[in-house]
């Protein structure tokens, strides 16, 4: 047995089903050994997308997604994908090949100091210098990635270590790390304090973030808020914690959020942030929101608490554990009047759009699409105007909503959707992107074709980098610079080139018929929707 065989055994021990990647000489021992395994390899078309695909898979399975790329440019290409996962706390284990240990530090061919380069985007990284360390390092890496605040871990393995003989393989049953023990269980005194505030509050609200989904606390949270009738808003990463049309849910907060959600948060007297960072896009003036209310901040990462807003009650721990602890407390709270006020806001604070009938109205289209989607369908939004429209108009039932929230990485949707589809082939998975973001990951149509991954793709085409154009519209008075996408390819021909079905929706006239065909079977389809180039999200 050699190091590469040991790596594969580690992945098998961790229950890994898929590895996304791109080979090169420095990772070839790994890709040779994996042929003996049942783990399926997916040859992605650029390394960044290997991390995105692994991210999509991780978000559906709750297990770290795995990618494996070669040294040098393979490793540097994957950094954006790793940074994207890091910003959204998605667990990944990313394996990079490395040059021979004797050549390390000598600027040899395809050598890059990847552990150094990626340091600020990983939860942890390893450079394996001894083949005997492989089982321990992999055991630790999967543990670190998927406990505490989730995140990517990178393992850099020189080619001679992959080829070195390993005398005996024993996968550690337990992780024994002296320095890493995340706090999972909430402090009992703090929990009691929160309950007391909930009893006292007249206008409580819970703002849920991605942490609720990462800790798989969705059901616990829903049960709790339904029992005590506590209203809920969410950050972008918290979309799909609550069904959009749930009577207690008032939408996404933030500068692209719903007016009623922001108003609800501002007027509350008790705000519980659960698994959310109080990040700048969700809360633009964190010092203001704490001024006239009790702020409870629940986060598994103690460093997030107090980073952006000083909470009245900090509560470190895993959201799931904490809501299970909340559920064990019995208390009374009464805020029907507050709910009625919020209901009133929901009814009255609505954005009136005046869509151009010559084009597809993204708002109406996305609403209609989500109504017709399978209840447990997975909607993957890309970045740009399409993302904001998706956040605003997608109606979540029991499905998931995936997007790159923290980093805002264009091109995320197609590879992430592929990962999600492979994670659960029975589920409908739809990637919605703009014509800019589509072209950033267009090469992955080949991967979809090669491995028969029937993701459905919608391109909201407006011929512009719409989000930047909108910014230039407001900030530079329509002085457009480098946002014109007029060289874009004809998507019908692109679809034909990759053997995909293609549909075109020019305006809302045929929306029912087109969507029925689009969603009608489990084949990949490319649906191009022509959107008014001048349409705005605000």
């Amino acid at each position, binding site marked *: 047995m050699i190091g590469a065989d040991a790596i594969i055994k580690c992945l098998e021990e961790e229950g890994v089903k898929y590895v996304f990647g791109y080979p090169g000489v420095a990772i070839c021992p790994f890709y040779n050994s994996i042929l003996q395994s049942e783990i399926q390899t997916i040859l992605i078309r650029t390394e960044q997308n290997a991390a995105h695909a692994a991210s999509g898979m991780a978000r559906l399975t709750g297990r770290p997604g795995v990618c494996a790329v070669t040294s040098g440019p393979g490793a540097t290409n994957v950094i954006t994908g790793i940074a994207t996962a890091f910003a959204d706390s998605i667990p990944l284990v990313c394996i990079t090949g490395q040059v021979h240990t004797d050549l390390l530090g000598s600027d040899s061919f395809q050598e890059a100091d990847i*552990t*150094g380069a990626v*340091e*600020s985007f990983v*939860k*942890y990284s390893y*450079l394996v210098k001894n083949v005997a360390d492989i089982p321990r390092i992999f055991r630790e890496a999967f543990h*670190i990635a998927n406990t505490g605040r989730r995140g990517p871990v990178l393992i850099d393995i020189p080619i001679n270590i992959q080829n070195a003989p390993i005398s005996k393989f024993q996968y550690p049953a337990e992780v024994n*790390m*002296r*320095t*890493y*023990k995340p*706090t999972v269980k909430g*402090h009992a005194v*703090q929990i009691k304090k929160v309950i007391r505030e909930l009893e006292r509050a007249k206008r409580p609200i819970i703002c849920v973030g991605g942490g609720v989904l990462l800790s798989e606390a969705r059901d616990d949270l829903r049960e709790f808020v339904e029992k005590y009738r506590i209203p809920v808003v969410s950050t972008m990463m918290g979309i799909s914690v609550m069904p959009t049309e749930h009577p207690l849910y008032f939408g996404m907060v933030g500068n692209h959020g719903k007016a009623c959600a922001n108003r609800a948060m501002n007027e509350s007297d008790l705000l519980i942030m659960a698994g959310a960072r109080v990040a700048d896009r969700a809360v633009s003036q964190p010092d203001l929101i704490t001024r006239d209310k009790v702020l409870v901040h629940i986060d598994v*990462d*103690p*460093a997030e*608490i*107090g*980073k952006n807003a*000083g909470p009245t009650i*900090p*509560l*470190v721990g895993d959201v799931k554990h904490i809501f299970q602890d909340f559920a064990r407390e019995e208390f009374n709270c009464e805020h029907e009047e507050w709910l009625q006020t919020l209901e009133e806001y929901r009814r009255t604070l609505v954005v009136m759009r005046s869509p151009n009938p010559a084009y597809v109205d993204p708002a109406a289209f996305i609403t209609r699409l989500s109504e017709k989607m399978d209840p447990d369908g997975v909607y993957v939004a890309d970045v740009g105007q399409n993302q904001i429209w998706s956040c605003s108009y997608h109606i979540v039932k029991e499905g998931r909503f995936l997007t790159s929230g923290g980093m805002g990485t264009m091109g995320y949707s197609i590879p992430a959707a592929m990962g999600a589809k492979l994670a659960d082939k029975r589920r409908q998975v739809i990637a919605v992107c703009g014509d800019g973001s589509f072209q950033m990951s267009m090469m992955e149509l080949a991967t979809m074709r090669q491995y028969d991954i029937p993701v459905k793709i919608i391109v909201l085409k407006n011929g512009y980098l719409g989000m930047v154009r909108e910014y230039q519209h407001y900030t530079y008075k329509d002085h457009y610079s480098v946002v014109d996408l007029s060289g874009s390819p004809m998507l019908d021909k692109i679809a034909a080139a990759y053997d995909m079905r293609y549909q075109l929706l020019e305006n809302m006239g045929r929306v029912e018929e087109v969507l029925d065909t689009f969603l009608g079977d489990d084949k990949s389809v490319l649906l191009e929707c022509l959107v008014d180039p001048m349409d705005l999200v605000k």
Partner: protein
Amino acid sequence: MQKRVFQLLVDNTSGVLSRISGLFSRRGYNIESITAGVTVDPRFTRVTIVTCGDDEILEQIEKQVGKLIDVRNIKELRPEESVYRELALIKVKADPQQRQSIIAVADIFRAKIIDVSKDSLIIELTGNQAKIEAFMNLLDGYEILESARTGIAGLGRGMENVIHLESDMEEQSHFPS
């Protein structure tokens, strides 16, 4: 802005110092000095960092550093409960006439002359930062040719807060109070 001294106990792994200093630079925290050396148990390294910032920054520094996987423990070394020492090497220009008076000043500070050449002396001085600064000020009348300072190393006084290297980690979880 206030100065604070943190003591870290970290795993003695390759790259651990770059992980710590990288965190300071990318988050824009100040490092006034950083010293590191292996402990009695070679698996661990003791790091002393002198930093400054307002309360919120200092709290973030403690949390962000504490979050690094290799960092086993971070604690503040409060001046009243700790001892700090720094070592300075100072090369002073000294002709034979000046020598005696420089040596006299050095004696008062219990500094040692560790090298003498025809035109210069090297003085070794250990103490807290205030002492070293006071000494350097006294040498103002002479010409300091070069100096090298180690930055401070520190330890808490007494038996309290001693981390037993083999003990379990329970006492270290980040419970907020």
